[in-house]
């Protein structure tokens, strides 16, 4: 179970793809350089580096174990030869430096090649050590550890467009950090009520605006999104904008509140829109319009009549993520039965695909799937009752520039690319 993938993220160039898992490990894949003679497909992704980012910890004061599961990974833009990423578990954020070593010095005077010191009396000549090529080694080292700033469980980290600061959000608070400074952070949002018994909502996700370094949003378990401007005041408890769609009274049920809880929020690359994911749908919001989303896409509406069962088996608490393609024309999110969905905002067409080994051989084109909600099931359709709710795709990522997607099932990572001719 330690292999359960818990986060997937491409870096800014798309060359690297990082995954985090429940066991606290980070695995980075690197895209092979394109082979000019084989222009029919882009490079494959192969394992580049694997390291243990977080270990389980025990909080003795509260008698609580702190899980090592990686909740989020975010890449920094590349500034030099090394790559940097932030990874976080429930309590601690770490900045990792990933660097390559492809040569090493050889010919020391005082040391043997294996590092043992030579007997000085045997040293009769002097030579200058030289760099010789070696097999590529990728090393990951923790450069900063940002700890002890979160009482509740961290659900999001987001790097600011100034590339100097980042935010981390837990259930009730959001903190602002400087990447160089680990011993303090600034609290910028605090929704903890004075009386915890009055608690009615928690923060579920937060993200900085891609271009505007003073702007960020955070979503709540009540289905609202607040946009905040850090220039307005030090503590951004008063939002600049509140995005909320009025509830449809005809859909009211015991579970209305749960399914309206937002599990992910992502700005478009342009910064003009943001996307939210709740249990049954994906919504696109125009930042200039607060009272309703501009587009709504139903991910698996056929589950609406099954909410009680999904509550019973805990599936209703699953937190699906969503992502944009590079040009913001298509959005993607996961579902059950290892299905994932894509919605084309321009053509309004949508497609359901499946990530599974049995049904897809490498290099075959994925066949669209269809779920039969009710009535007579057509050939090739799958009925709602035969969906496997243990096979869920919570994490998906889209290459920033190309049509390559990464889809994580429970234990496996699938990478798909569009067919090139």
């Amino acid at each position, binding site marked *: 179970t330690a292999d359960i993938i818990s986060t997937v993220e491409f870096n800014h160039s798309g060359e690297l793809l990082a995954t985090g898992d429940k066991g606290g490990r980070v695995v980075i894949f690197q895209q092979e350089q394109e082979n000019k003679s084989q222009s029919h497909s882009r490079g494959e992704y192969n394992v580049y580096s694997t390291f243990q980012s977080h270990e389980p910890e025990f909080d003795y004061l*509260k008698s*609580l174990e702190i899980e090592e599961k990686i909740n989020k990974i975010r890449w920094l833009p590349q500034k030099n030869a090394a790559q940097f990423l932030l990874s976080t578990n429930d309590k601690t954020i770490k900045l990792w430096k990933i660097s390559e070593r492809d040569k090493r010095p050889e010919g020391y005077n005082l040391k043997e090649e294996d590092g043992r010191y030579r007997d000085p009396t045997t040293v009769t000549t002097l030579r200058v050590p030289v760099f010789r090529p070696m097999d590529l080694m990728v090393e990951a080292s923790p450069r900063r550890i940002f700890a002890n700033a979160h009482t*509740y469980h961290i659900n999001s980290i987001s790097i600011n467009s100034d590339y100097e600061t980042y935010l981390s959000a837990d259930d009730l608070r959001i903190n602002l950090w400087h990447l160089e400074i680990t011993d303090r952070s600034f609290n910028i949002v605090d929704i903890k009520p004075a009386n*915890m018994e009055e608690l009615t909502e928690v923060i579920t996700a937060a993200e900085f605006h891609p271009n505007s370094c003073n702007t960020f949003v955070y979503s709540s*378990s009540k289905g609202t999104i607040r946009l905040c401007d850090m220039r307005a005041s030090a503590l951004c408890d008063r939002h600049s904008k509140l995005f909320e769609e009025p509830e449809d009274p005809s859909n009211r049920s015991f579970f209305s*509140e749960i399914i309206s*809880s937002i599990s992910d929020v992502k700005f478009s690359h342009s910064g003009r829109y943001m996307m939210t994911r709740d249990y049954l749908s994906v919504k696109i919001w125009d930042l200039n319009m607060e009272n309703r989303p501009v587009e709504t896409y139903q991910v698996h509406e056929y589950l609406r009549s099954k909410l009680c069962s999904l509550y019973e088996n805990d599936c209703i608490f699953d937190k699906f993520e969503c992502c944009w393609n590079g040009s913001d024309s298509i959005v993607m999110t996961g579902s059950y039965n290892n299905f994932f969905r894509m919605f084309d905002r321009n053509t309004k067409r949508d497609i359901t695909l499946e990530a599974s080994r049995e049904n897809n051989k490498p290099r075959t084109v994925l066949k669209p799937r269809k779920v039969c909600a009710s009535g007579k099931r057509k050939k090739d359709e799958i009925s709602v009752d035969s969906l496997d709710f243990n096979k869920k795709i919570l994490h998906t990522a889209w290459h920033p520039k190309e049509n390559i997607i990464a889809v994580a099932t429970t234990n496996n990572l699938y990478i798909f690319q569009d067919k090139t001719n």
Partner: protein
Amino acid sequence: MEFKLEAHRIVSISLGKIYSARGQRGGLKLHKNLLVSLVLRSARQVYLSEPGCPPEPPPIAAPEEQPPPPQDQAARLPAADCREPRPRGCGCCGEATCGAAAPPTPPPCPRKRSAGERGQAGSPVKRPRREVEEEPPPGEQEDMETGNVASLISIFGSSFSGLLSKEPKARRRDPRDGGDATETTEPGQICCDEPVLRTLNPWSTAIVAF
């Protein structure tokens, strides 16, 4: 009636989730437990608002609260005085900060329901979001997870004991003495069938332990 059965089932499932959340690795998941408590409240409201509930008396011990964090020990209400689990009994202990913020109702009990809330048979009643069920505790130190647990216990506890009875007086009395006096008040507010309560019994122990 269907809604009542469904509501009861959801109450049971919810209590089961709270119970099993205790030993979870990584500590209490605030988000999930908040959502479960919201469902529990909705289901409870529907359950209680449905007509056709025979008046009744249930010998179920009200849940007692788990010992609060050490720093609140002094402010804590002795359990014997109050059936309602209260993390830091406000009106009774006379804490200044608490008193100032407390709503006017003195009895430490679940909110009284107005007639208006009840009659929506057949549709889940949306709980008013800003409603404060209980009196705020005295200024507590920020004690992270333990504070959360205590709060959730009181939330669940009040929800649970709300199932038992709505009457403050009845609550103060030991239910084992028989709740006859409660029957004379508002039928329909008072909780339920014997079989239901028998079913709920194990859960009362669960809440206590939690």
